[in-house]
C-alpha cells in the first residue's frame, strides 16, 4: 500500500542553526511530494513541493532534497527561527488521478532560543 513516514517524531534545534527533517516513502512510482507546516490549532500550510524529475528545489530559507534511489525526502530549514516551531509533514500524491494526499506521521520541530 501507500505510505509515507518520517524518521524522527521530534527534533530540537538551537535558534540560528539549520534544521533537517527527513521522510521516507515506499511507493517508487510517486512523482510529487509536498512539505507542509502545521502550527498548533491550525491547518497544514504549504511550504514547498518537488517533482520526481528533480533532486533539489529551493525556496526562501527552505530546501527540499529528493533521493529516488533510496526513496528519501528531506526538508532543510536554514537559520531556524522560533516561528519555525511546528509539526512538519511530508506528503505524496496518492495513486489515481484524484490528487488525494498521503501524509506521513509528522516531525515536531522545537526551536530553542
Amino acid at each position, binding site marked *: 500500500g501507500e505510505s509515507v513516514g518520517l524518521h524522527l517524531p521530534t527534533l530540537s534545534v538551537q535558534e540560528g542553526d539549520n534544521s533537517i527533517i527527513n521522510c521516507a516513502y515506499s511507493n517508487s512510482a510517486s512523482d510529487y511530494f509536498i512539505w*507542509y507546516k502545521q502550527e498548533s490549532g491550525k491547518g497544514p500550510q504549504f511550504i514547498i513541493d518537488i517533482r520526481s524529475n528533480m533532486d533539489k528545489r529551493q525556496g526562501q530559507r527552505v530546501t527540499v532534497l529528493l533521493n529516488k534511489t533510496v526513496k528519501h525526502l528531506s526538508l532543510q530549514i536554514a537559520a531556524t527561527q522560533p516561528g519555525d516551531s511546528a509539526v512538519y509533514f511530508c506528503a505524496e500524491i496518492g495513486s489515481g488521478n484524484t490528487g488525494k494526499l498521503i501524509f506521513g506521521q509528522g516531525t515536531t520541530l522545537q526551536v530553542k532560543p
Partner: protein
Amino acid sequence: EPEVTQTPSHQVTQMGQEVILRCVPISNHLYFYWYRQILGQKVEFLVSFYNNEISEKSEIFDDQFSVERPDGSNFTLKIRSTKLEDSAMYFCASKTVSDTQYFGPGTRLTVL
C-alpha cells in the same frame, strides 16, 4: 491572499447526532477534499470531490458520511450519526488543476 475557510472552529455533539461541517474553498478552485486528523496522529484522506461528484473516498468514508456542494461556494461534510471515534480535526482543502492543495484551519469535532 485568498484562503480556505471553515466553520465552526469547534463543534461539540452527542453521540448519535448529525453534524454538518462547512467549508468555503478558494473561489477559482475546482477540486475539493476533506481530511481528518485524530489528536496526535497524521492527516488522513477522507474524500475528494470534482465536477459535483465524489471522485474518490477512503475506507473511513462509510455510509455515515456524505459531502455536498449546495451552491457555488460552500462544500459540506455531513456525519449522519456521530460516534465517539469520529472525534478529530476535520480539514477541508481545495486546489486548481495544479497539484498544490490549500488547507483550511479545520473544525475540531468533539463527540461526547
